[in-house]
Structure formats: structure tokens, C-alpha cells
């Protein structure tokens, strides 16, 4: 039984090509009937109510309130409702959303997986910095293809043994 969800960051505002590796990954993930959650930026300061709605594709859309995807949103409630224990983060590397959301996921007891080829950025230095930070503290760096292969096996993702230095 797979207990993982893919959470995308900033993909709604910055669409990707349909034939890109990430788009293919997301389509395959959907085809496996596994949960897909999109965190959307562009917070409306006049209305900081949490907005979550299911789109026609059954993907879950959640409006960001502040830096972390968990901060005053129902992301955790959605994950818990689906008995998710592993969060896979994919999307655009902008600001510190990847770091804050992954740290919050870790603090809330989820295993965090980030596929290096699932992070889009114009800055190789920022990507390197993110991956080093994740690997140093709690993140499991696994490629898109390896994640899909594991998901298709139907087994839960193995837990990374985390030892904070």
C-alpha cells in the first residue's frame, strides 16, 4: 500500500511543457491513482483564508498563506485524511518554499523525498545548496524514475534514517 503523496510547488503559476520529465512523471503518478497536491503562491493579502478545492482531475489545490505550505493551510489535514506518511516535493525552486515546506513536513512526522530532477531552477548553485541542505538534515534524494518504479511496486517507501548533526 503506497502511503505517499506528491506535493508540487509553484507549478500552477509556472506551467511546464507537456513532454517534460516532470509532466510525464505527474501523469504517470495520476494514472496510478496516487494523490497529487498543488501548492499555489500569489497569496491575496485581503483574503488569507485557506482555499482548497478539488479540480476536475481530482488533484488537490491549496493556496499558500506564508512561506511554508503547512502554515495555516489544510495541507496536513489532507495528508492525514489520506493516511500519507511520505511527501514527495516537486516544482519550481523559488525563495525558500522548498526548504520551509520540507522542514515543516519533517517536523510533522512525514518522510520527505525530493527528486533532484524534479526541481526546476535557473540557478544550479541554488539547486546544489538546496540538495546539500536537504541531504544534511532529513531529505531523501531520489530520482523521478526511481520514485515511479517504487510506486509501481506497490510497496511503502523505505524510511530514511535521519540523524541530525
Amino acid at each position, binding site marked *: 500500500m503506497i502511503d505517499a503523496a506528491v506535493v508540487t510547488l509553484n507549478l500552477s503559476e509556472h506551467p511546464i511543457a507537456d513532454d517534460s520529465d516532470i509532466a510525464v512523471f505527474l501523469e504517470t503518478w495520476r494514472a496510478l491513482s496516487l494523490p497529487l497536491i498543488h501548492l499555489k503562491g500569489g497569496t491575496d493579502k485581503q483574503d488569507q483564508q485557506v482555499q482548497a478545492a478539488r479540480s476536475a482531475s481530482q488533484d488537490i489545490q491549496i493556496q499558500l498563506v506564508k*512561506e*511554508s505550505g503547512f502554515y495555516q493551510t489544510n495541507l496536513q489535514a489532507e495528508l492525514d485524511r489520506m493516511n500519507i506518511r511520505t511527501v514527495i516535493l516537486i516544482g519550481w525552486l523559488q525563495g525558500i518554499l522548498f526548504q*520551509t515546506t520540507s522542514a*515543516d513536513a519533517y*517536523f510533522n512526522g512525514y518522510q520527505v523525498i525530493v527528486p533532484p530532477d524534479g526541481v526546476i531552477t535557473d540557478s544550479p548553485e541554488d539547486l546544489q545548496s538546496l540538495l546539500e541542505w536537504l541531504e544534511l538534515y532529513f531529505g531523501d534524494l531520489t530520482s523521478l524514475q526511481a520514485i515511479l518504479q517504487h510506486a509501481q511496486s506497490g510497496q511503502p517507501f523505505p524510511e530514511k534514517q535521519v540523524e*541530525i548533526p
Partner: protein
Amino acid sequence: MTEDRIVLDHGSGAKLSRLLVEHIAKVLEEVYLGEMEDSACLPLLAPQIAVTTDSFVVTPLFFGGGDIGKIAVCGTVNDLAVSGATPKYLTLSLVVEAGFRIDELNVILESVRNTALEAGVKIVAGDTKVVDRGEVDKLFINTAGIGELHHPPLSMRNIKPGDRIILSGNIGDHSIHLLSLRAGLGFEQRVPSDCAPLNGMIAQLLGNDIGSTIKCMRDVTRGGLASVLHEFVRSCGFSMYVEESKLPLREETVMAADMLGINPIYLANEGCLCLIVAPVTASEVVTLLREHPYGRNAVDIGWVSDTAGGELMMQDNEGNLHRIEELTGQELPRLC
């Protein structure tokens, strides 16, 4: 009071002003000694007094482990206590934005009362000003404090080569907590503020037989540990060495500081002391500090060298030495 929000008339000097002042005195209960005269006349039982003042503009007003009321008492009490004084009296001045909720004001005043009770100080005078919306951000507080000095004040002039540098607790937590609260970084539940009145712990130290071996101390606030140590180095003229591996740091604070690209030695705290202590009693001082709830993470982090020139050096985990530069222009605003 019947209103649920502060209005401009609460600062007019007329009836609503009187009602607000009476309300504040009522909430402060036994810690308020004011006689509603134009000044407070106070008994002092020491040949010298220490006086300090500070203004508090922290945002947000409420945070994990405290609020602006607690910080306004702790900040001034701690400034008195690190001089070797026994804090006795505080003044309390509020600048309130019209529209501020009175139930929130009550919570803050209760914090002032509870913290003053813990610190053993009395509020002896006060002032309340109300300004129009937008002229101040919700609430600013100023406190001034008076302490009795029964011994010669502690001074940086006492620092000698060989002295040890001791920290009473974790560094960086207060800053990371507030930054996380403001931006929703996700660390605010894991890293609480360390805001606390430290005069009880300091009195326990100075009242002990080894109290006379404590050369000087500072509360590690704005500018962090680096600023305190640079102040020491400038004053004594000797270089100081700190071991990175000894720094008391919460894991999540390291993680957040790393994420933000900030060195925790520059981060502000509100409940941490840095002490300079004669080497012969350093371990006893650490042991004594650890017996107090606010000193549980006390640790000896370094030493004063006999090298003139006044450098502040950090020995990293690989044994390499790096110069710690003084903080310039990176101060994070409104942390206290």
C-alpha cells in the same frame, strides 16, 4: 472598562484616560506601587543604584513563550542584573495605537504583572499615550529600571588572560522563533523564544562563594554572541577564542539558520547570558548555572588569550581558526 478597543480619548488626560490608568493598575495588582502622583518616591537600601531604560517594539506582539509585556520587563530587569545590581523598581510607559483591542492589552499587562512577580520588581510609575491609527504599530512599550548595587558593579575592565567564556543557554532561538512566526517558516513550533528574567539565576551566582570570580556578564540580545564578545574584546584589548563545537545550539535552530544563510552567533536572544569567569571556578559556575531552569544548557565555550590586538576567533570543528567579524548592517529588525 466598557470599551473593547482603545480610542484616542484614552490618552486625552480626561475621564477615559483616568479609567484606563485605573484599569492598568487593577490588572497589575500587587506589582503596581504607584501613588498616582507626578513621581514616585522610593526607599533604597544600597550606597549605589543602577539605572537603565529600554524601548520595546517587537513584532508580532505575541509569540511562543512570551509577548511584548514579558519582554519589556525581562529586557530591563536583565540589563540591571548583568551589572551586578538587584532589580527593584520599573516604570512602564505604553504608546498605544487607537483601535488596539483591550482584551489583548489585558493579556500583555498580565504578562507584565507575572514577569514582574517572578523577577521580584515593582512597577512604580507609568504613562500611557494613545496615537491615531498608523502612527504606531499597535503597541510600543518603554520600561526604565532601578536596581540596588550592594557590591562594586561588574565591569569589562576586570577581564584577564586565561579567563573562561561561559554561555548560560542556547543561542539563536528567539530570533529564529520570531522570524519563523512572521514569515510562516515552519520552525515556530519547534523553536520557542528563550525570553526570561535572568536576575534570579544571576543572584544565585553572585550570592555564592564563587560570585567574586565572575568578572563581568552581558545578556546576549541584539547582535548576538558575536556583538557581546566584540564588546569585551574592544574593552580588554586581548583576543578571545570560541570553540564552535561547544556552542549550545538547538538542532532546529541550526537547520533554520543554515537555510536562511545566517550565522547563529549573530542572532538575538532574550534569555541568555555570556559570562567571563576566572578559570579556577569556571566549571563550578557552569554547574551552578545548570541547576537553574534558565541555565540548563550552560557551557564553557572558550577563553581569553594573552594575545594583544583584540581579535575574536572561532575554532571550527576541524580545528581551523576563523576571525569572527563584527556584525555590520545585518540586524534583523524589531526582535525586542
